[in-house]
């Protein structure tokens, strides 16, 4: 075990920023959701790295809280994808488009 914690943190930061670029630069709503998925995965890498490096120290009062956080992030990510893709399909059925900037039903 010779990997410093910062390696994981830098990797997660790079993954997060790649996802951020995807979410901001794409026109297609499904591609935006793909970018959001990358960002959520980067957050989970951070949580698990902190669990392994900081929660498992001897005499830590709560040795599993990093993993518990990650499991809850998993559940929220699944909910987000289900609602997001259902919304995109519903919009596609009505407007025949999935481009995020052509959907202006709620704009005024």
């Amino acid at each position: 075990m010779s990997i410093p914690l910062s390696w994981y943190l830098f990797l997660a930061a790079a993954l997060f920023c790649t996802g951020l670029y995807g979410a901001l630069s794409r026109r297609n709503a499904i591609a935006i959701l793909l970018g959001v998925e990358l960002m959520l995965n980067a957050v989970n890498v951070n949580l698990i790295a902190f669990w392994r490096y900081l929660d498992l120290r001897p005499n830590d009062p709560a040795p599993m809280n990093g993993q518990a956080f990650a499991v809850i992030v998993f559940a929220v990510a699944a909910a987000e994808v289900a609602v997001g893709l259902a919304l995109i399909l519903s919009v596609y059925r009505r407007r025949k488009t999935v481009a995020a900037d052509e959907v202006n039903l709620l704009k005024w």
Partner: protein
Amino acid sequence: MTAEQGLFLCAAAFTLASAVMVVSARRLIHAALWLIAVLSGVAILYALLQASFLVVVQVVIYIGAIAVLFIFAIMLTRRQTDHDAPSRWTRRAPAFLISLLTLGALSGIVLAFPEAGRLPPPMPPDLDAVNALGAALLSPTGAAAYAGVLFHESYVLPFEVASVLLLAALVGAIYLATTERRRRES
């Protein structure tokens, strides 16, 4: 450089290269397939961090359910997504700038973090991580014992709130995705 560092660097390079392909692939179905590669790379990282339960969750839920859901959604909106025109540079340049600034800010935080150079503590020999996670998430008292000490960390309430959120989201997703005609017929 130890074998473990080499393994980490290979997994990290694979994950990041696949992530770049996800945000730059012209055809959306290719982006979704590259997302599966990213998710597998992240599963390798979880395995390196010895989070065995989360490796399984990553493969079963993310690759098995979420990635397949994406592929279905892309196929159902195929006419639009088949040839996704690249967005204009006026859209890409600010996005690139913002993500570069975010990367700089996050790297600054990591560099300023005093524990960033820390090496992992040895795995507690009698910690059954899957069992302890189950106790923390499901048992009302959250009693899990390891190294002769009884721990009381209980996340029952947040976990149940998350499951109610997931249930509500799935009911809402089914409602949104059903056509109105089908709804009237039933």
